[in-house]
């Protein structure tokens, strides 16, 4: 953990979910950091839902182009083989299941894979952007999140309390405490992060959680 923030550790662990040749959509926040941890020699193409396949690194200051941004509205660059397209084409790709994996943040996830990440009624209403399409379209939705709220309440729940972004769509959760898979029998704990025992994760989780026979401790 020395010198690496919780968010970066989550991003490093998320990167292990990548497979060579994947087309991936990285959501705003922690998932965006995954781009820094793509294993050497692995070919990954990043999709940006505002109309780009093949996101490159941030440009040099002198090369910033207002017409070249990612879905987080940051200036970016292209790579050899990048492609631009309109928003209908972009979501045809997403909704049609062509994006191999979608990593996104969440406020809450339930034990059956429901996700809430776009509004807190009466408090925060920013809109779902492309999140509802991403969770409905991808076979491989992986959530990056903090396991508990600032006041220690579990964000991995029996049922989400916030308005849903999607139903039964999350396949895996990578939190600052552990990695959980969503199975037909509920959540299964696969790994814990450094500094957390299996009991730590189970006790911090409101949802029913089963511990895998092969559960690893302190893997990231």
């Amino acid at each position: 953990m020395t010198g690496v923030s919780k968010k970066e550790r989550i991003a490093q662990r998320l990167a292990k979910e990548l497979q060579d040749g994947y087309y991936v959509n990285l959501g705003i926040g922690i998932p965006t950091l995954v781009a820094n941890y793509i294993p050497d020699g692995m070919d990954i193409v990043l999709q940006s839902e505002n109309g780009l396949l093949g996101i490159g690194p941030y440009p040099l200051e002198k090369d910033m182009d207002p017409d070249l941004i990612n879905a987080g509205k940051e200036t970016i660059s292209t790579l050899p083989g990048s492609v631009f397209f309109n928003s209908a084409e972009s979501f045809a790709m997403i909704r049609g299941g062509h994006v191999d994996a979608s990593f996104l943040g969440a406020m809450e996830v339930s034990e059956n894979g429901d996700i809430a990440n776009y509004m807190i009624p009466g408090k925060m209403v920013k809109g779902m952007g492309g999140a509802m399409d991403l969770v409905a379209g991808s076979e491989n939705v992986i959530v990056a999140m903090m396991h508990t709220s600032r006041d220690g309440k579990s964000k991995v729940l029996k049922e989400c309390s916030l308005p849903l972004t999607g139903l039964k769509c999350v396949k895996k959760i990578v939190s600052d405490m552990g990695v959980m898979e969503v199975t037909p029998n509920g959540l299964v704990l696969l790994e814990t992060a450094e500094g957390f025992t299996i009991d730590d994760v189970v006790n911090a989780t409101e949802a029913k959680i089963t511990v895998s026979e092969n559960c690893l401790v302190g893997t990231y």
Partner: protein
Amino acid sequence: MAKILASSKDAMAHVKSGMTLMVGGFGVCGLPENLVHALAETNVKDITLISNNGSVDNWGNGKLIANKQIVKLFASYIGENSELAEQFISGQIDVELVPQGTLAERIRAGGAGIPAFFTPTGFGTKVAEGKEARNINGKDCILEEALLADVSFVKAHKADKLGNLVFNKTAQNFNPLMATAGKITIVEVEEIVENGELDPDEIHLPSIYVNYIVKGEQYDRRIEKRTYSSATS
């Protein structure tokens, strides 16, 4: 075939109070800023605006919102605009949040003569409220209707004199879709070229959808988030 207008101001003759207006762009990127800012100088009001974002405070759509020219907004994302948030919370503006892909597809459907389609996006969420739900070949879906506009404002990079358009990089986004869904489509461009100068295999939007073209008076080249890396890294 498109008519070439002398100024963005001239284009405003086509926009009347109470109309439904589509405005291209993703945040400030690819937003038809000259047309939107010209509309902000008029007395046109009670506009239903269809645009992906509320845009930023007091620029682009944000100007129309600050002027209270907008009564209803269809958008997928309304962050980055405090005036909009305030009007929304106080009930001065009606906002329908539409998932970004559904928004794009509803606009495409409007232009393509598809009155409605089933999509899995939003099933079981607030977006599904009041909509028909149906399981089709194992997928839970909801029925979404096409969107059309009285007028669409579009930003392209170049047009030829017929009105064929090419867009630049991610400034394309919703622009070509909205061009197809406007009863009247007005396009602002950085450059107007002769017919034949655009390669027929490389045109993004055929002229059949374009009614008016205007060369944009001024481009801010605005960036929402300036992210860059240092030369040495």
